[in-house]
């Protein structure tokens, strides 16, 4: 690789977060390079379902909700703009999303949540009765009790979004190096001086660690937890409709489905508990495959004969409060963390915008980064459960 000797900004990680930032920086005329250890979108960016769920989880804190809404709304607006700007159709579809209840108890909880959200200023969210959900989503199991529904949610093709961002970043002069693994972020007593890669040094004053689930390897001061999930994909079928469904049933089962533009239905969520070191494994066990496939027959009985054509695993990330880390690393000038995402579509556009603003305007951003400040976890020892999977972690975080 012919790496430059120096540049203004080094972004580590060729996923959608890193490239979204690279795109904004390059557009502003900044000399930026992206270093990716595998290929573009090899991690979670190319492996997730692309569900756009603006307010994920079952957060009941009104203050937190109203704060999150500001970022979610801005992200939504920016995604729409990106869809126009990028010379790449990433299949954005604002088809709404459902959080479905299959018991009276769950329906009551959703009703309560909707009420809290509405009080917090969320005007879009609504509760749909079971028969209304049935009407909108006819392939769903008949015993559906209701759903939390947001009409402006939807889905997109995350791999295409990431490629679109890469293409646009390159158009504005960003240099993207794939199969280029950064060994170390170089710092002196003041701050960042460069990165060390394949025995060479690239000098820079700014480094963005956008490696998400892998972030703690380069910056261990902030503990970001990798979490592996499994997806199975069906053949192309007619619209079921495409709207993403995310649901939590009892204490055990969390699953998600979404349908791509071409008609493939992606189903995921049931995984075995694994140890932290094994969360990066991208193979799928037979049990996981079977369990995820069984979600289809369990919850979508009328399409239970559909053919499953692919299965894979990918690794997303969690922080100790479930929200990402976006902002400066305490004590190291020029080092930005942009990691800890488990709902990438809800943050991709706004993250690129805010991180690029921070770099271009000396720490000033159009929306405050405080809620995502990495300082909240700086050198904090977190006692994560071992082994774990999605259900165990969300329960640990109090999100179930």
């Amino acid at each position, binding site marked *: 690789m012919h790496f430059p000797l120096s540049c203004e900004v080094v972004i580590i990680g060729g996923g959608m977060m890193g490239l979204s930032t690279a795109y904004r920086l390059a557009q502003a005329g900044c000399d930026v390079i992206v270093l990716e250890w595998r290929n573009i979108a090899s991690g979670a960016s190319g492996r997730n379902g692309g569900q756009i769920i603006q307010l994920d989880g079952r957060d009941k804190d009104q203050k937190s909700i109203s704060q999150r809404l500001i970022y979610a709304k801005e992200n939504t607006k920016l995604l729409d703009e990106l869809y126009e700007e990028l010379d790449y159709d990433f299949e954005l579809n604002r088809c709404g999303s459902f959080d479905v209840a299959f018991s009276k108890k769950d329906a009551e909880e959703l009703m309560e949540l909707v009420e809290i959200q509405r009080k917090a200023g969320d005007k879009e969210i609504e509760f749909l009765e079971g028969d209304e959900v049935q009407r909108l989503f006819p*392939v769903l199991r008949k015993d559906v009790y209701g759903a939390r529904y947001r009409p402006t949610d939807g889905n997109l093709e995350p791999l295409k979004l990431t490629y679109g961002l890469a293409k646009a970043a390159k158009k504005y002069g960003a240099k993207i190096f794939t199969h280029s693994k950064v060994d170390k972020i170089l710092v002196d007593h003041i701050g960042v001086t460069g990165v060390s890669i394949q025995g060479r040094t690239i000098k820079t004053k700014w480094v963005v660690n956008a490696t998400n689930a892998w972030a703690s390897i380069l910056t261990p001061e902030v503990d970001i937890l990798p979490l592996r999930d499994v997806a199975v994909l069906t053949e192309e079928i*007619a619209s079921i409709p495409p709207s993403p469904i995310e649901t939590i049933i009892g204490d055990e089962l969390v699953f998600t489905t979404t349908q791509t533009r071409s008609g493939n239905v992606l189903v995921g969520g049931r995984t075995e508990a694994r140890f932290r070191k094994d969360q990066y494994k991208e193979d799928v066990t037979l049990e996981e495959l079977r369990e995820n496939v069984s979600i289809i027959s369990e919850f979508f009985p*009328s399409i239970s004969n559909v053919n499953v054509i692919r299965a894979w695993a990918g690794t997303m990330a969690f922080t100790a409060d479930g929200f990402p880390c976006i902002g400066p690393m305490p004590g190291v000038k020029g080092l930005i963390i942009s990691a800890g995402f488990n709902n990438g579509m809800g943050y991709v556009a706004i993250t690129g915008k805010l991180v690029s603003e921070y770099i271009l305007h000396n720490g000033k951003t159009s929306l405050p980064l405080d809620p995502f400040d990495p300082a909240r976890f700086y050198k904090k020892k977190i006692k994560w459960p071992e082994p774990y999977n999605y259900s165990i972690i969300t329960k640990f975080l109090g999100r179930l």
Partner: protein
Amino acid sequence: MRIVDHPILGKLKERKKVFIEVDGRKIEAYEGEPIAAALLAAGVRVFRYTSKEKEPRGLFCAIGRCTDCVMIVDGIPNVRTCVTSVRDGMKIETQKGLGKWRK
């Protein structure tokens, strides 16, 4: 067209006849044979139309690989007719695009 007599394979063996329905038309088939064979024997070669260009498609690989021969069988779309055996009373429909699932 059925090959009734063959210089090497001899006369077509007596097999149990069944009836299947293709787009409302009743056709004769033999127990155990794939749907695609019964359709070709009845002169049906267009099995489906593609979703975007609405182009006709038919049997191509006959080993369940190419999925060009899929049809709606008993309400289930995308059934590979080259590797699915006929059953008496089976209802087969020409698939348009991705087809419709019976709810």
